[in-house]
């Protein structure tokens, strides 16, 4: 891949080893929380590639997260012996199709009108999940009855086991991130970026900007759907919480906390938000107030999110190293 050096590879290997060793270092609750962060990071990624790369500010990303979660849960409920990975794929594809259909209407608009239409469609899907009780369970939700994963050479993986689930979610999330990183290096993604910079300019070059944006919207929805399906599996339960407005705004907060223009920022944002929510809510019922203040500070002083602090931290480290080197 472009721009990779030995430092990056070593860093990536160390990170992978640390993530593999994690189940031995933390308890079951923490492991579930980390799996949750992984699911949310894909959800935030779906927002980031839309807003940060394509310049489309969607206020309704929960729609695709929710469709992914519900379709995955329904696949387990209604299809006997539903293969585990197929259920996830089904959820993701359903979310992608939903995003494609919604995107065809939304990307015709720009600015505030685009954002408002994404909210409208998201609320429409929420209403279906809420009202169609016979299928979705309404606000009572659905229990996700997962089947064990049968291995090709015999044996099976217990899907009720937190550690196995952690590894599975981690593997899928890493694959999705690698796919997304590859995608951003393709000529198609250059087109997406050009549409963000100037629609008219891109169309003068001969690009169908409408279809480019619809496709970007669909890809974002697909990744959101994978996140939703994994979330449903991790929680073993789906309710209207996954598809409501609040979920969309949580996604937006996570994205801006991490860095709404950065793919890595989506992991950072999901991690900071989830950990802080868990930590603060242990001590005070007013945890949302504190998170709100944090969000205000980030918007006012760190618009590029926590990911923008990484180069500054690296520069400080190298300064410190130089200083200590001179002293010695």
């Amino acid at each position, binding site marked *: 891949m472009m721009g990779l050096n030995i430092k990056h590879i070593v860093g990536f290997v160390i990170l992978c080893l640390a993530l593999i060793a994690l189940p031995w270092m933390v308890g079951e609750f923490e492991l579930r929380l980390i799996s949750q962060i992984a699911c949310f990071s894909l959800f935030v990624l779906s927002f980031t590639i839309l807003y940060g790369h394509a310049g489309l500010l969607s206020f309704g990303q929960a729609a695709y997260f929710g469709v992914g979660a519900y379709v995955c849960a329904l696949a387990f409920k209604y299809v006997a012996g539903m293969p585990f990975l197929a259920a996830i794929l089904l959820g993701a594809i359903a979310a992608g199709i939903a995003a494609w259909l919604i995107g065809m209407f939304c990307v015709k608009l720009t600015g505030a009108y685009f954002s408002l239409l994404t909210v409208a469609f998201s609320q429409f899907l929420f209403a279906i999940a809420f009202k169609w009780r016979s299928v979705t369970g309404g606000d009572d939700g659905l229990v996700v009855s997962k089947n064990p994963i049968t291995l090709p050479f015999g044996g099976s993986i217990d899907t009720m086991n937190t550690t196995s689930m952690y590894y599975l979610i981690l593997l899928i999330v890493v694959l999705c991130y690698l796919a997304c990183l590859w995608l951003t290096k393709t000529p198609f993604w*250059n087109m997406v970026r050009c549409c963000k910079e*100037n629609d008219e300019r891109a169309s003068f*070059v001969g690009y169908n900007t409408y279809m480019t944006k619809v496709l970007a919207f669909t890809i974002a929805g697909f990744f959101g759907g994978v996140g939703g399906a994994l979330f449903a599996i991790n929680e073993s339960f789906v309710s209207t919480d996954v598809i409501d407005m609040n979920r969309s705004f949580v996604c937006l907060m996570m994205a801006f906390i991490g860095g709404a223009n950065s793919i890595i920022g989506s992991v950072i944002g999901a991690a900071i938000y989830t950990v802080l929510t868990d930590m603060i809510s242990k001590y005070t019922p007013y945890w949302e107030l504190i998170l709100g203040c944090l969000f205000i500070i980030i918007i006012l002083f760190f618009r590029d999110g926590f990911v923008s602090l990484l180069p500054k931290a690296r520069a400080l480290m190298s300064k410190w190293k130089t200083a200590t080197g001179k002293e010695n």
Partner: protein
Amino acid sequence: MNSETECQLELKSINTYYGKSHILYDVSMKVRKGELVGLLGRNGVGKSTTLNSIMGVVTPQSGSIIFEGNNICGLQPYQIARRGIGIVPEERRIFPTITVRENLLMGQKPAAGSQGNEWTIDKIYEYMPLLKKLDGNKGGYLSGGEKQMLSIARSLMGNPSLLLLDEPMEGLAPVIVNELCGMIKRINETGVSIILVEGSMRSILQVCQRVYVMAKGAIVFDGSADELEQNKDIQCTYLEV
């Protein structure tokens, strides 16, 4: 010469509006294959609107635009671009966050017809050696003249058979203007027809074979560059400030 068969673009009495404002009044013009045509006029007379109408940015309410035998009125800009019309809009609209080479690659597409002899990055660098030196530089860091050159080069990468240049000399130093004029001539010599829109007469007379003059949204003069140079009435009434 059979002008009908050689006619590449023909605007037939087009009337273009922005909302309720009537901008172009029965504008008719012709561009023959391989011709370099100038479109002159003061600010606000409808020169850019004429180009925008050709390019599909705004659709004329009446009249037709025939390009290589087909009516392109009502098509989307990207469909028109794919048929072989390239445009270099005002404000040197290059992509600032990607490199010169990437900007060129963004514009790359095969020729609409089978004209062969397509533009490649190497051919562009041969015609514009300055861009070769700037190959890895980000578009946003180029000077005005360099941006203009890149903008024209990017359009050429789409292998247009007709190129629309909207005030490419605006705001550039005289030395750069001369260089650009030479470049536009060389591009035209490769067989690409060009409509060059300018506010100033000097550069148009330097390069164009035929000139249209616009005033208040209508064509008021259609003739050769020499005829315009000798027609002081048109110059005084419609061009001089």
